[in-house]
């Protein structure tokens, strides 16, 4: 898509942009549909049950049916809710999650926008979703929703810090925050990928990412056993669907980012395997990350709020800092990175 950026903005180009965005939207919605399906299937297998298998062949249309149900549902707004905010919150949650996808390079030339500060762009936009969640919790006029919203704000702000700092090591080794350049810097064998020299950063990133995604074991904002459904307790129908969508789009984004930052993006593990297109490698790595997230969900219990905060500030943040020093030392003495 890079050639579009180099041309002046015309109606034609704007139409191309829109078309590109719609394509991404289509891909993302397809992903979300089948991510939910696979999540249910995988967790089902892990729990000795079948998972969805009724709607369509092998239950493949289960999510479609679920979405259809959500869209056809009556749209309810609690009487005492703050209507404007209540309506705005789901959109506010979804839009940044989708916009953040613009910078993700799927292949050498398969990228929507090649931004120099790609990673920062992602972090900035994902921060907006926090506001949406707090807004939803507040506007619902429900105590559980409020507690969920507050928890979410605290959690996402806390975990953004180690998340960003864990990537600093990668940025130092590459000398850039541009995601495409980060991938290019990892060419070669799989031990050239960032996850080995940046193993601390990788672990911190994964843990923080799980927390950013509000997924088990960090799913406190919507801890169903304590807070019923957290910030979206009062939401139903397509508004709820938007929150759900935003959550899975972030899963998509984080899986992509992990692939790009630490797992070599579209690079094959061995240069000899380069005859397989890069996009295949990308998708495989991406799916491995997604599977990991589901796997964790089937395995772990949930942390407590104070433990969650403690983990972010007392464990992950120092580790991420340490990682920066180690990386700096590595670059200085051992000539890591470019």
């Amino acid at each position, binding site marked *: 898509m890079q050639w579009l950026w180099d041309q002046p903005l015309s109606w034609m180009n704007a139409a191309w942009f829109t078309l590109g965005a719609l394509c991404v939207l289509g891909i993302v919605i397809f992903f979300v549909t089948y991510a939910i399906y696979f999540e249910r299937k995988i967790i089902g297998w892990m*729990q000795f*049950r079948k998972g969805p298998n009724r709607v369509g062949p092998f239950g493949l249309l289960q999510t479609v049916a679920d979405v259809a149900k959500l869209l056809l549902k009556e749209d309810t707004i609690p009487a005492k809710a703050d209507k404007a905010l209540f309506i705005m919150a789901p959109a506010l949650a979804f839009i940044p999650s989708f916009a953040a996808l613009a910078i993700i390079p799927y292949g050498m030339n398969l990228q929507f926008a090649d931004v120099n500060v790609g990673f920062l762009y992602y972090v900035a936009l994902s921060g907006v979703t926090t506001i949406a969640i707090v807004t939803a919790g507040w506007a619902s006029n429900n105590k559980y929703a409020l507690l969920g919203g507050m928890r979410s704000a605290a959690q996402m702000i806390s975990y953004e810090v180690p998340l960003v700092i864990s990537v600093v090591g990668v940025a130092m080794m590459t000398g850039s925050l541009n995601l495409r350049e980060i991938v290019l810097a990892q060419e070669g064998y799989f031990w050239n990928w960032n996850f080995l020299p940046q193993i601390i950063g990788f672990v911190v990133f994964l843990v923080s990412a799980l927390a950013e995604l509000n997924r088990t074991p960090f799913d406190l904002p919507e801890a169903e*056993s304590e807070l019923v459904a957290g910030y979206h307790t009062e939401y139903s129908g397509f508004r709820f669907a938007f929150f759900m969508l935003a959550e899975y789009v972030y899963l998509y984004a984080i899986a992509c980012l992990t692939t790009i930052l630490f797992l070599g993006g579209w690079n094959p593990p061995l240069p000899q395997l380069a005859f397989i297109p890069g996009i295949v490698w990308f998708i495989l790595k991406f799916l491995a990350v997604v599977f990991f997230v589901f796997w964790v969900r089937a395995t772990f*219990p949930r*942390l*407590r709020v104070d433990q969650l905060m403690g983990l972010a500030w007392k464990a992950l943040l120092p580790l991420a800092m340490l990682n920066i020093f180690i990386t700096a030392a590595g670059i200085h003495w051992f000539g890591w990175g470019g």
Partner: protein
Amino acid sequence: MIRTEELLLNVGPQHPSTHGVLRVVVKLDGEIITHVEPVIGYLHRGTEKLAESLNYTQIIPYTDRMDYLSAMTNNYVLCYAVEKMMGIEVPERAEFLRLIVMELQRIASHLVWWGTYLLDIGALSPFLFAFNDRERILQLFNELCGARLTYNYMRVGGVKWDAPEGWIDKVKAFVKDMKSRLDEYHNLVSGNEIFLARVKGIGAYDAETAIQYGLSGANLRCTGVKWDLRKNEPYCIYDRFDFDIPVGQNGDCYDRYYVRTEEIRQSLRILEQALEQFPPEGETMGKVPRAIRPPAGEVYVRIESPRGEIGCYIVSKGKAEPYRLKFRRPSFVNLQILPKLLVGESMTNLVTILGGIDIVLGEVDC
């Protein structure tokens, strides 16, 4: 100055973690609980009042519905009380059947607890594993008495149905499988750091407090008090079998978890012995008068249900119906300690502690 307001939160009666229609009114300062008041009675059906106009056999189905996760022990305590008053001898085979179903029931009940407790803590899978295994027990009960939850299996003087052909072998197979499954459970959960961080040191109390509050079952044993009615005041034929009473030390949620999981193991031990010694033939009903009319007087019997000491106090005036029937329900008594444990804890620990007490609302409200 920042002024913070207390938040009054109604946890329940419809809430995923109150395990029924318990309502806990909590006052929160941030997420810290400052005041707790459990409100019960949403499931009060007046069992004790209903019993006064029913004869003893008719009351048995009502006991099923008290602690619906442990209907067999409830059945037993009523039959035991009447048998004690009337001096009825229960045949050997019936006693064995009773013991076997009660121990199976204990395992089933603890499995439900184990699964739901971990679900409360946020672990999804153990719930389904536990229900998978419990399902096998329910199938066994189904074969035995045609019901999966409310069995109505025991009668004064014995049991209603003899074990069908091959049933004992199926139980044996289950016991064998369950042993290895239990080890898997421990592998999956018991060493998990997150789980330990969530339950260790949470909701702790000492033995003195436990006794003061009249706690029983695992809630008492977690403090180190070695008190199990199966050993201390043996009933049925428990005194013939060899088993241990697992006890904790710190009286926290982890110890309660440990005690309950160990109790599954001990129940399996009892079952192994009981199945080995199960009499190949014999009566399943003792000699019972046509009309069950305990003589005038009163009796209090108590047995160890999965939740603690379930007692049955009968005042009889020599009629076919009890004059007064009172059940001492362990969940009801155990729940009293909740406010004491919760003040100063966070909302998250509310779920951990409440789940750790292991209540069944059908029994709390009776």
